[in-house]
């Protein structure tokens, strides 16, 4: 292109190139299926182990150790996930109402709170871990069906 205004053909080509670059960046950020599944599993193990550690005095130490280990694994997996492909994803909520962004976290907390009524903190943490894992796995299913 020159310094003059581009022709319609040049403009369309430039637009296409820009949209292709934006799409390529989004594709490069797609986290591998196995990594997301591992994130969900680590989250479930972390919450469940820490929750059960409070309910079983004899197994408290190994369960706490397992929970902390899973916590570290979860953080490492999350870090690898967001840094996958050399790009840090941009948070985008375009086209989605603010309340829709909050639905999943709010539902997760609500499930944890409801389970806490009959089963206490142990039940709440186990439920929280399972719901979080389900959310991670739901994301994989949604990405694959898209």
């Amino acid at each position: 292109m020159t310094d003059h205004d581009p022709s319609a053909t040049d403009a369309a080509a430039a637009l296409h190139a820009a949209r292709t670059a934006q799409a390529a960046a989004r594709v490069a950020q797609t986290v591998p299926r196995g990594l997301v599944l591992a994130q969900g599993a680590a989250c479930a193990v972390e919450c469940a182990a820490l929750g059960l550690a409070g309910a079983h005095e004899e197994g408290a130490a190994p369960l706490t150790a397992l929970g902390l280990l899973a916590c570290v694994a979860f953080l490492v997996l999350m870090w690898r996930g967001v840094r996958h492909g050399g790009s840090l994803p941009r948070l985008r909520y375009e086209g989605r109402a603010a309340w829709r962004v909050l639905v999943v976290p709010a539902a997760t907390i609500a499930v944890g709170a409801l389970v806490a009524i009959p089963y206490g903190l142990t039940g709440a943490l186990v439920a929280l871990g399972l719901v979080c894992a389900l959310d991670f796995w739901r994301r994989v299913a949604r990405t694959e069906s898209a």
Partner: protein
Amino acid sequence: MTGTPPPSLDRELHHPTRLALVAYLSSCTETEFGVLRDYCGISDSVTSKTVSALEKLGYVTVRKGYVGKRPRTWVALTRQGLRALETHLAALEEIVATAKRAGATAEEPT
């Protein structure tokens, strides 16, 4: 005519490499230098010059660090850069839309 002036092209984003680089960055919070170089299909030197020019304009920021012992450079688009890109793309869309309208008018039977 409306009161809003049409979006204008950004001369700094005319070059295809600059446009591709900025557009790629617009979908990321930050990206490794090597990823940009590979996507644009250009050399380290050209990528470095392009990023430096965009940094001087305030369109991108550059952060240097290490992954293990390996030095890495990350590039991120600034708000100013994002606004410039959005305006530039809007201007390009306007040019295409105007041409389409003109084409449709010319094809209308008289």
